[in-house]
C-alpha cells in the first residue's frame, strides 16, 4: 500500500464533521416538513369543527344578512359543498403548490397578508431575543461567582423578572413610559420608537429565564480545573469569564433559546394586541375569531416553520459551540 492511497483512505476530520452537520440538518428539515403538514391538518380540522357556518364567515358574519342566493353562490365558489375529505385534499394540493388561498375576512391572498405582517413580528421577536441575551450576559458574566451579595441580588432580579408576565409588564410600561412620561408612542408599528416598549416587555421575562440557567452553569464552570489553569497563566478575571467560561456556560441558554422562540411568538400575540402593532400575532388573533380558515392556517404554518427553522439553527449552533456533542449527535 502506497502512502498516497493511505492518505486518501484516512478520513478528513473537518469534512467528516461538516458532512455530519449537513446530514443532521437535512434530517431535521425532513422532520420539519412533516411537522408543517401536521400543523396544517390539525388547524384545518379544528376550524372546520368550529361551531358556525364558514360561509357566513366569508360573507362578513351573521350581521351581514346575506340572501340565500349569495350563500349558495359563495358555498359553491369556495368549494364548501364538497365533502370535508375532498375539501381537505384540495386544500392540501394547493398548499403543496404554494397557494395558501384567499383570506375570508380580508379578501386578499393569504401570501400577501403574510408577506406584509411577517416582518413586524420577526423584528419584534428578534429584537427581544437579542435584548434578552444582552441582559443575560450583562447580568450573569459580570456577577456570577463574584461577591456574595452582588450575586444574590442579581439572582433575585432574575427570579423576579422570570415571574413577570409579559402582558402585565407591557401594560405597566405603557402606563409609565407612554401615558405618564410620554417618552414612547403607546401604539403603532412604524419606526424604532414603537419597538422599544414591546420588545422590552418581551425581553425581560425571557432574560430572567435564560439568566437563571446560565448563572447556574457559569458558576459550575468557574469551578472547573481549566478555569484555574487559565487563571494561573495570569489571565485577568474578565478574560477568563469571557474567553473560557462563557463558551461552556451559554450551552443550556442556547438550547433554552430554541424553546424561547415558541414562547416569544405566543408572547408576541399578546404584546401586539396590547400595543396595537402590526404583525402575525394580532392578525392570528383576529383571524381565529373571524373563522378565517386560510389565514389562520397560513399564519400557523409560518409560525411553525419559523419555530422549526430556529430550532435547527439552535441545534447546529449548539454543535458548533461545543464540538464534543457531535460524537453523540451523529
Amino acid at each position, binding site marked *: 500500500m502506497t502512502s498516497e492511497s493511505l492518505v486518501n483512505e484516512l478520513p478528513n476530520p473537518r469534512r467528516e464533521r461538516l458532512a455530519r452537520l449537513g446530514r443532521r440538518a437535512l434530517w431535521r428539515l425532513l422532520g420539519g416538513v412533516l411537522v408543517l403538514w401536521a400543523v396544517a391538518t390539525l388547524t384545518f380540522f379544528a376550524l372546520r369543527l*368550529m361551531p358556525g357556518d364558514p360561509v357566513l364567515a366569508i360573507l362578513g358574519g351573521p350581521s351581514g344578512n346575506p340572501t340565500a342566493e349569495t350563500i349558495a353562490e359563495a358555498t359553491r365558489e369556495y368549494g364548501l359543498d364538497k365533502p370535508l375529505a375532498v375539501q381537505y385534499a384540495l386544500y392540501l394540493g394547493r398548499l403543496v403548490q404554494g397557494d395558501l388561498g384567499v383570506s375570508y375576512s380580508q379578501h386578499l391572498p393569504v401570501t400577501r397578508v403574510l408577506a406584509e405582517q411577517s416582518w413586524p413580528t420577526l423584528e419584534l421577536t428578534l429584537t427581544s431575543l437579542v435584548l434578552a441575551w444582552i441582559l443575560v450576559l450583562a447580568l450573569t458574566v459580570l456577577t456570577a461567582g463574584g461577591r456574595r451579595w452582588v450575586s444574590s441580588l442579581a439572582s433575585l432580579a432574575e427570579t423576579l423578572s422570570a*415571574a413577570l408576565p409579559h402582558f402585565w409588564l407591557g401594560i405597566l410600561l405603557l402606563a409609565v413610559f407612554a401615558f405618564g412620561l410620554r417618552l414612547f408612542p403607546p401604539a403603532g408599528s412604524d419606526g424604532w420608537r414603537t419597538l422599544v416598549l414591546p420588545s422590552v416587555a418581551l425581553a425581560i421575562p425571557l432574560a430572567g429565564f435564560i439568566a437563571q440557567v446560565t448563572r447556574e452553569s457559569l458558576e459550575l464552570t468557574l469551578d472547573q480545573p481549566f478555569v484555574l489553569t487559565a487563571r494561573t497563566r495570569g489571565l485577568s478575571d474578565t478574560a477568563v469569564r469571557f474567553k473560557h467560561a462563557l463558551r461552556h456556560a451559554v450551552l443550556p441558554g442556547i438550547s433554552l433559546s430554541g424553546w424561547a422562540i415558541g414562547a416569544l411568538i405566543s408572547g408576541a*400575540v399578546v404584546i401586539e394586541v396590547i400595543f396595537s402593532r402590526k404583525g402575525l400575532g394580532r392578525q392570528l388573533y383576529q383571524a381565529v375569531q373571524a373563522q378565517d380558515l386560510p389565514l389562520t392556517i397560513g399564519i400557523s404554518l409560518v409560525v411553525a416553520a419559523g419555530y422549526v427553522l430556529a430550532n435547527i439553527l439552535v441545534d447546529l449552533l449548539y454543535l458548533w459551540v461545543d464540538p464534543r456533542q457531535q460524537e453523540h449527535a451523529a
Partner: protein
Amino acid sequence: MSELLLDTPLPGIRVQRTPRKWRFGPLLAVSFLGFLIIAAVLPQLFAHSDPLAIVPHDAFHPPGWAHWFGTDQSGRDIFSRVIYGTRQSLFIGLAATALAMSIAIVLGLLGGLGGAYLDRGVGWLLEILFAFPSLILALLFVAVFGSGIGPLIVATGLGGAPGYARMVRGQVLAVRNAGYIESAKALGHPPLRIITRQLLPNAMRPLIVTLTMGVGQAIVWASALSFLGLGARPPAPEWGTMLSMGRDFIANAWWLTFFPGLFIVLTTLSTTVAGRYLQQRLEGRLA
C-alpha cells in the same frame, strides 16, 4: 485556602457550616401561598365587600384606607375582587397542571416503555406540539369549544403537556433499567404493578419541583388567555379578566391593572422560590 481547612474537620473544632440559602425567601413564599389557599377557601375572611357589588358613585376611587386597592369603573372594590379571584386562579393553575401532567405521564410512559417505533411516534407528536406555539393551540381550542373556565383549563394544560412529557420520557428511560426494576421483574411482579409501584414514583421524584413551579406558570398562562378574552367572562373576579378590563383605563387608573397583576407575579414568584427550596432540600444541597 480556608475552604480546604473547613472540609477536613479536626477533632475538637466545630465545623462552620455554610449558612442556609433562601432561608427568609422560602418562608415568605410559603406563607404567601398559605395565605392564597386560605383566601381561596374562605375569601370572606379577608374581603369584606361583595366582589360584584356595583357602587356607581364610588367609581375609580384611587387606593386608600376605604379601598386598599381602589375601585374599578363600576365602583367595585378591587381588593375584594382580587381575593375572591384567588379561588378561580388557583383552581385553574392546579387543574391545568394536573391535566398537563396526566397527558405527559401517558405520553412519557408510551415513549419510554413502548419500544422503538412507539417512541419515535411519541417523539414526532411532541415535536408537532412544540412547533405549535401554545397560544395558537389555545386560540384554536377556545375557538372550537367556546370560552370559559373549562376550555381555559384544557387549553393551558395542553400547552404545558409537551414540556412535561419530554421530562417524563427522559426519566422513564433513565429509571427503567435500574436494579430495583430488574429485581421486581425477577420476583414476578405484574408489569402494571411495577409501573405504578416502582417506575412512576421513582421517575416522578425530580418532577415534583417542576410541578410546583408549573402551577405558577399555568396561572400566568391562564391569565394571558383570560386577558385576551378567552377565559372567564368580564364581571367575574378572575385576575386575567380583571387585567383585561382595566387595560381600557390604564391612562388614568393604573390600580385597575396593577393589583391583579401584582398577585399573579407574587404567586408565580412564590411557587418558584418554594419549588427551588424543595429542589435544594431533595437534592441534599442544603446543609
